[in-house]
């Protein structure tokens, strides 16, 4: 057997340094949110002596498992503000990060299937417009014009009675987003440390002073948790609890097909959302499995129901084959809104609770969490998303009201 000479390895986008003895700040979690947080800490706050600790490989958790939908059509003012800011950042980030991560503003449709859906949707369109979020209400004929493969017949179990539409919404290539942030972080001097699992925290009184990891002890001034589904596990190590529950959330892709699906279609009511990736796979997400789970997989009936709904809405998909299915662990809160906050431990900060919709929030989470870590107090945009709201009762209830598919 002969071994042919392999071509040179392309340039690496980031170094793989060993951890230093100490940093000004340590971010736990090398997914999208951790990377974005480190990027904005370095860029906006001049903090470059920082590290991202990732227990596995870069962006291999929910960042590798989501359905990449980006939108900002949330009902309440607080949510519209942070998600719209995020969308505006998505619009400038490809240039800022000097990386075309295929952000495609192909629009997102949220279908209404009942009279209740219609009323709620029309209300949300009004709220969005007042908050400067682009939104319109489409009747079934307009839905069909925008997405010709959608079945708008009224003889199906949940007929399409209309949809909200956000033209500036869309999808992006999730891996490339992670790589874009990682390359810039690295250029700015951030240490991205993979295969480095946090096993404990070192505290002086109630102040965190270091992190114990599978690669040794690291001293640090500040710690930011960006661990999504594993946030509760880390909080427990640090001695406090978080009001979140971790659930499996499943998604699947088909084999590659010709471009047939021009936009993104979400249905809250029948728990399915569908887009077609740049390569041609149909990408579909489901609702969460009901039980708590850390297993990165869920029950088959969830996939079955999601596909039944998809085939009824898109009869053309009936002969498409599933290529693979998978699950991520999402960190859900009781009000379906994120937590970007100080924590009960001094110098420790938490970014979690983004639940089923963290991908779209990546830039805003990074921006506001970096501000919170650097200054010790929240940014104007994440002030309403503190842990205090569970005590004051100032919840931001986006369950059902925000086109959130749960």
């Amino acid at each position, binding site marked *: 057997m002969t071994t042919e000479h392999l071509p040179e390895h392309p340039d690496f986008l980031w170094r793989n340094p060993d951890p230093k003895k100490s940093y000004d700040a340590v971010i736990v979690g090398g997914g999208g949110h951790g990377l974005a947080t480190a990027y904005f800490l370095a860029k906006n706050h001049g903090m470059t002596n920082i590290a991202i600790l990732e227990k596995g490989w870069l962006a291999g958790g929910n960042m590798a498992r989501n359905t990449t939908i980006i939108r900002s059509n949330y009902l309440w003012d607080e949510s519209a503000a942070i998600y719209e800011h995020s969308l505006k950042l998505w619009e400038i980030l490809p240039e800022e990060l000097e990386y075309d991560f295929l952000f495609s503003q192909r629009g997102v449709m949220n279908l209404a299937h009942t009279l209740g859906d219609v009323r709620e949707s029309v209300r949300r369109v009004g709220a969005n417009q007042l908050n400067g979020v682009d939104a319109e209400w489409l009747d079934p004929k307009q839905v069909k014009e925008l997405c010709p493969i959608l079945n708008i017949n009224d003889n199906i179990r949940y007929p399409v009675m209309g949809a909200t539409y956000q033209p500036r919404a869309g999808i992006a290539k999730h891996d490339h987003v992670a790589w874009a942030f990682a390359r810039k972080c690295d250029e700015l001097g951030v240490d991205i440390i993979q295969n480095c699992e946090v096993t*404990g925290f070192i*505290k*002086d009184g109630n102040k965190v002073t270091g992190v*114990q990891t599978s690669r040794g002890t690291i001293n640090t001034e500040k710690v930011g948790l960006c661990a999504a589904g594993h946030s509760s596990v880390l909080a427990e190590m640090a001695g406090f*609890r978080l009001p979140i*529950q971790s659930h499996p959330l499943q998604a699947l892709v088909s084999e590659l097909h010709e471009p047939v699906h021009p936009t993104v279609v979400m249905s809250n009511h029948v728990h399915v959302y569908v887009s077609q990736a740049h390569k041609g796979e149909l990408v579909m997400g489901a609702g969460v499995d009901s039980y708590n*789970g850390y297993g990165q997989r869920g029950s088959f009936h969830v996939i079955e129901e999601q596909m039944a709904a998809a085939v009824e809405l898109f009869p053309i998909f009936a002969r498409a084959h599933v290529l693979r299915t998978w699950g991520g662990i999402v960190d859900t809160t009781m009000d379906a809104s994120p937590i970007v906050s100080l924590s009960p431990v001094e110098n420790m900060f938490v970014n979690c609770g983004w639940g089923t919709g963290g991908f779209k929030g990546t830039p805003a989470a990074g921006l506001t969490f970096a501000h919170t870590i650097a200054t010790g107090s929240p940014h104007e945009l994440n002030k309403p998303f503190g*842990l205090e709201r569970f005590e004051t009762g100032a919840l931001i209830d986006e369950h059902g009201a925000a086109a959130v598919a749960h």
Partner: protein
Amino acid sequence: MLLFSCPNCGPRNETEFHYGGQAHVAYPDQPGELSDREWAEYLFYRQNTKGLFAERWVHSTGCRKWFNMIRDTVSYDIQAVYRMGEQPPEGLTAPPAAQAKSQPLAPAEANPTNTSEGV
């Protein structure tokens, strides 16, 4: 799909059941005397255990009765099923009553050992 052994009906598909979250969370004894923090604990804070977890399910399309289950939240293996009002079998999970004790959101007392090891 998971297969559950309902204490009344025997083994049935997961789709016949609905989830009720953490088991053994008692309604406050003196609701009128709870602080905002304690109400937050009761309403919004639940264990989010990675590993063996005591949880409630209801057999919605069967006997319609609630029951408790010990399930591993990583492997999803079911270790035990027991009726409402009963305590979990010894050794399968930490006493839930102790887990449910509230922890303040405000900074905790100084930790004399200076470290907080992972679990």
